């Protein structure tokens, strides 16, 4: 080989080395700048979804008039809420929410343990049945319970009087108890959905070690099972407690008639029940509540700091169950009683009533299929159904994708900006829906007309994503926290990239939680009214708006037909989801 040829070859090698170096440098650059760019993009998206409407509301709370009307900045909104009356309302709200969350959490944890960790018969079916109440529109269960539990002619009281031969009243739903009971019907399945997969994903070796070391079944449950569930249970507790503070339907149905006022009924009063809507007070009151909720989050973060809750490790395990012996029939009975009280009774009442001309009037000559026919022939219903399905599927998928990324960054990285991302993703949960809806309305309407959001399905979709993100983040981050870091590291060591590890390790292991989150958000979208009523336009009606129209125009029977159809949809969704989970777990 001549020297010229050697030189040429040497040049080629140098050129190739240079190219590789350039590629490596550019990849290094991408790595160096890609992450901050990604974080910035995520912060911008979350800011638009949550901070932007919140800033509109903050403006509303600090300005004498809402956006678009000349006025002045002042603190009158905050000054006006500092009254003894509002203190009583606040105490009422916190008290009611606390009691219902504690009771619902205890019940949900018990039910989740029964379903996921014991050999109770029919667990698969029970799991679906227990979650059903969450998916029934609150307005329908409120109507059903008003018929079942009113002091004068409620079915339960009539049966009680017939049985005892007295004139006494067994229950009265128009009371604190009624408000709490109605709220619990939603909180219990909500918390249950949150915690059941965490129970399932736990390595039973930890419980077995406890039992081997001489602990009783109760000690094991209390010190091992429950302690390991701390992130997921505290997350569920706080989500549920905050939702309780923002709850409206239960209080307005069963509290207002007997003088029980809560935060949301007071806000509702400020906005809709005065000649001049008082947005300044309403938003100021919401921000005061937000500050309170923020304290709770800080408390949760302190409670969990520095503790490890890893239960899903690289080591293989086979999820098994505790054998309860004859006690399994007791646990079975607990589930059945819960189902009977929260589903069978109210849904039975709705189902029965849907075949009669009027709710609660069971006479042969009033039997009819008219309500089913009316819904079937209602073109507005079908248009809204189509819109809602589109928004539900797209919204739930987008929200879970966003929530999955946010949760990963906040729980499994030490990247700069992760705390900001966490707070931004939380914000929408801490503002009552009816107030946040106004924030979206103001925010989207005021955008430049070239951005086609206001008056389109985009407005609804973006609002739904913002409202669902906190749930998506909580569900996935609780699941991520259970997965050991070594599995992820192992993936990286074997050459997988960030996205590959996220997709093939974390999401693959946490996907039952993803499925639950998806269903929660999908049905959250189906039920959402506060933002929908303010953001829909002719042609973009959604189911909740159509149901409100039917309700206000005196057609509760048709609303119940839609509610029952939604329940069937839930059953199908849950059945498919649980089948997949079962298949997945058997292959783990």
């Amino acid at each position, binding site marked *: 080989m001549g020297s010229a040829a050697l030189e040429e070859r040497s040049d080629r090698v140098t050129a190739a080395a240079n190219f590789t170096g350039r590629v490596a440098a550019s990849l290094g650059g991408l790595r160096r700048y890609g992450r901050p760019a990604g974080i910035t993009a995520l912060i911008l998206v979350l800011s638009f979804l949550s901070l932007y409407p919140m800033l509109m509301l903050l*403006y509303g709370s600090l300005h004498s008039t*809402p*956006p*678009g*009307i*000349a006025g002045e900045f002042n603190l009158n909104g905050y000054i006006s809420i500092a009254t003894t009356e509002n203190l009583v309302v606040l105490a009422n709200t916190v008290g009611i929410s606390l009691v219902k969350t504690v009771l619902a959490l205890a019940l949900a944890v018990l039910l989740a343990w029964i379903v996921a960790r014991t050999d109770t018969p029919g667990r698969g079916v029970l799991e679906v049945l227990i979650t059903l109440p969450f998916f029934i529109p609150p307005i329908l269960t409120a*109507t059903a319970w*008003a*018929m079942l539990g*009113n002091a*004068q*002619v409620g079915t339960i009281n009539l049966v009680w009087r017939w049985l005892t031969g007295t004139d006494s009243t067994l229950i009265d739903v128009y009371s604190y108890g009624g408000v709490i009971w109605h709220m619990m019907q939603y909180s219990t399945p909500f918390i249950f959905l949150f915690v059941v997969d965490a129970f399932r994903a736990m390595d039973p070796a930890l419980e077995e070690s406890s039992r081997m070391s001489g602990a009783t079944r109760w000690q094991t449950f209390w010190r091992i099972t429950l302690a390991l569930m701390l992130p997921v249970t505290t997350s569920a507790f706080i989500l549920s407690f905050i939702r309780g503070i923002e709850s409206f339907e239960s209080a*307005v*149905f069963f509290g*207002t*008639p*007997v003088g029980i006022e809560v935060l949301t009924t007071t806000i509702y*009063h400020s*906005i*809709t*029940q*005065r*000649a*001049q*809507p008082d947005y300044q007070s309403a938003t100021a009151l919401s921000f005061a509540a937000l500050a309170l909720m923020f304290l709770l989050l800080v408390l949760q973060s302190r409670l969990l700091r520095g503790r490890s809750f890893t239960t899903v490790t690289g080591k293989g395990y086979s999820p098994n169950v505790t054998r309860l012996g004859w006690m399994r029939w007791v646990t079975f009975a607990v589930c059945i009683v819960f189902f009977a009280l929260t589903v069978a009774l109210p849904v039975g009442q709705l189902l029965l009533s849907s075949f009669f*001309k*009027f*709710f*609660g*009037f069971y006479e042969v000559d*009033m039997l009819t299929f008219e309500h089913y026919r009316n819904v079937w022939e209602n073109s507005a219903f079908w248009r809204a159904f189509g819109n809602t399905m589109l928004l539900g599927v797209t919204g739930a998928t987008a929200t879970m994708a966003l929530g999955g990324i946010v949760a990963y960054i906040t729980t499994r990285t030490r990247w700069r900006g992760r705390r900001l991302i966490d707070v931004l993703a939380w914000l929408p949960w801490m503002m009552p829906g009816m107030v946040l809806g*106004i924030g979206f*309305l*103001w925010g989207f*309407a*005021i955008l430049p*007309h070239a951005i086609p959001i*206001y*008056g389109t399905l985009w407005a609804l979709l973006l609002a739904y994503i913002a409202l669902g993100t906190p749930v998506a983040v909580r569900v996935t981050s609780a699941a991520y926290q259970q997965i050991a870091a070594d599995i992820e590291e192992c993936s990286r060591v074997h050459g997988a990239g960030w996205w590959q590890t996220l997709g093939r390790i974390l999401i693959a292991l946490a996907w039952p939680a993803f499925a639950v989150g998806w269903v929660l958000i999908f049905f959250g979208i189906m039920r959402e009214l506060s933002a929908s*009523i*303010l953001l*829909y*336009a*002719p*042609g973009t009606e959604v189911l909740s*708006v159509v149901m*409100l*129209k*039917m*309700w*206000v*125009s*005196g*057609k*509760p029977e048709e609303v119940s037909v839609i509610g029952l159809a939604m329940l069937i949809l839930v059953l199908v969704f849950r059945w498919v989801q649980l089948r997949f989970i079962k298949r997945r777990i058997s292959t783990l």
Partner: protein
Amino acid sequence: MLRRRVLGMLAATSALAGPASAQTDDWSKVVEAAKKEGKLVIYTASIGSPFHKTVIKAFEQKYGIPVEMLEARASEVRERVRVEQAAGRFLGDIHHNGSTTTWLMNRDGNFQPHGPIPNIKNIVPPYEADDIRVPAEVISYCLMVNRNLVKPGDEPKSWKDILDPKWTGKILSDDYRALGGGAVFFVVTYDTFGKEFHEKLAAQKPVFSRDLANSERRVARGEFPLYLPFSLQNYNNLKGLPVKPIVPTEGRPYVRFDLTMMKGAPHPNAARLFMNHYLEPDSQLVFANAGYAPVVKGVVEKTLPEIRDLLATKALGTTTPDRQDAMLELAKQIYK
């Protein structure tokens, strides 16, 4: 920055809002122009009303102009109109809402003059149109009793009869301390019978509920024997149930719904045509048969017999927007 932006939008608002006087006054030309506009957008606080839909369908069939409707509660409609106009978005043509909200929105400059409308001449007192507002239909308030629980001889004849001790704890009512029928009842009966009437009524311990449709059903099911104030048009939804509406001898409080043309309406001629259509006797008869008091002459006589007698009663009075907040405050003091 925001303020500058808002002021800019306000400027755009006033520039876009064309005067209705520029519209042609020759009615056949209005009809022609309306058809050319090809669409009408209505914002209404009358949610899910089948009667509204009947009248709109007739309009669509008669003129071939499709109508789009945005239905929401009164305060929600108001806020949407306000923020849309502030942002320079002029999407709606007709606004249909209670007279109080309409009055407040008119004060805020959300409407424009509608121009001449032929059927306005048929409007009967005490209802009247002005250059902005056109009366649409009237909600009348009365009492409702459960026929199984209240014998004909025990039925209240006068508003004052509900003060009888036999009704203590047995009255279900819309809340007088919040906007709505309850507040209208409070204002009118306060003006007619004085404060003492309400102090005595407070002693009767009425139970308040704001879920109107459900309240009527609760009375029908026998939870309470007496409900007030009952919106007469809701009787249609309750036919077949053991309830009976009663208009007391003194008369019925009422509240008017108005039609207005929204500022910057993109289809102003279609809006005018619709207002005129709404005042046609056939349209008004749809509302009258449903229990709304019609606002034009020659309609009450043609209504269904069971409704005619109720509508022929005296209109006792209505609320006025300027003193509404003061009256709500007064109600709060009396009904603690």
